[in-house]
């Protein structure tokens, strides 16, 4: 199955075209999307944890459009990057850990929005409940680990050494 994905014409084009608009552009878009999703999520978490109090809590929900845009860029570029290296990525534990962390991060972001940021009465009070602050901490931690594990997918030998298995 992974082999079939990797041999699709689109996968081969992304992986093997010498053009800058193939693999390298997709890789650049993935970095831009990553910085957008992580950066804006961090901004929201920092505000909920008490930094930059000049940003009204009721305004935080307006940042979600940018998160969705960054996530959409990374969904498309991520699928293309996976297709280009399906046999390598699909069998790499670090890749699936990263996927789980990204899904958890996005779920936490949506949960923060549904539980607090969409509640105009709650945000108008100016008080961030302890449960929401905890959620902000978990979100920051989750995205930090997603970034770390995501980078480590480029270094399978280091991951193997950390967890004591052979590749």
């Amino acid at each position, binding site marked *: 199955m992974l082999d079939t994905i990797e041999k699709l014409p689109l996968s081969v084009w992304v992986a093997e075209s*010498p053009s*800058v608009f193939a693999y390298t552009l997709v890789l650049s878009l993935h970095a831009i999307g990553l910085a*957008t999703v992580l950066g*804006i999520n961090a*901004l929201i978490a920092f505000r909920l944890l008490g930094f930059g*109090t000049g940003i*009204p809590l009721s305004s935080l929900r*307006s*940042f979600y*459009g940018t998160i969705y845009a960054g996530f959409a860029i990374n969904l498309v570029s991520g699928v293309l990057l996976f297709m280009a290296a399906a046999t390598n990525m699909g069998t790499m534990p670090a890749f699936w850990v990263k996927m789980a962390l990204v899904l958890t991060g996005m779920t936490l972001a949506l949960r923060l929005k549904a539980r607090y940021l969409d509640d105009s009465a709650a945000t108008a009070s100016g008080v961030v409940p302890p449960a929401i602050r905890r959620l902000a901490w978990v979100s920051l931690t989750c995205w930090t680990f997603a970034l770390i594990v995501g980078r480590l997918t480029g270094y399978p030998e280091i991951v193997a050494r950390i967890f004591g298995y052979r590749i």
Partner: protein
Amino acid sequence: MESLSQALTWPFMQELVNAHGWLWAVFEIIHYAGMSLLIGLVGGLDLRILGCFRSVPIGAFKAFMPLAIAAFCGNVLTGLAFVTSNATGASFYVENGSFQLKVLALLLAFVNLMVFQFSGLERRVYAVPGGADAPGSAKVVALVSLLSWIFVIIFGRLLMYNDALLYTFGY
């Protein structure tokens, strides 16, 4: 170029990274975290000036700027670590077209920041309350800032694949 390459090739950094291969990955993780913070904080401010998140008073972003500066300093240090510790010498970066374009984009971001800071725009922009629009000249500065950071990322990613850039543009 050759003397610059020599000056930026530091044998002790090459030996350090050669002896501890994981250091390179750690530098990369810090570099990516810094990049994300810069895009979230400076890119967020740029987008607000351009008209997104209009309910946020623009001055509210000022509190995050020390963190953005710290992230940038972290990236300059880790960037210097990449250049000075490269196994084949700093010439890999110094003579790399994508790296040169990345430095150019960084210079553009810096000059743009200086214009923002010293033209009096910064004071005017930070006084814009929630719901109000930034002055047109500030929007130009914000757009240049956003685009220059995007190009810093693009050329930063491209420098490992400089051949693709050369191929596409016919070299």
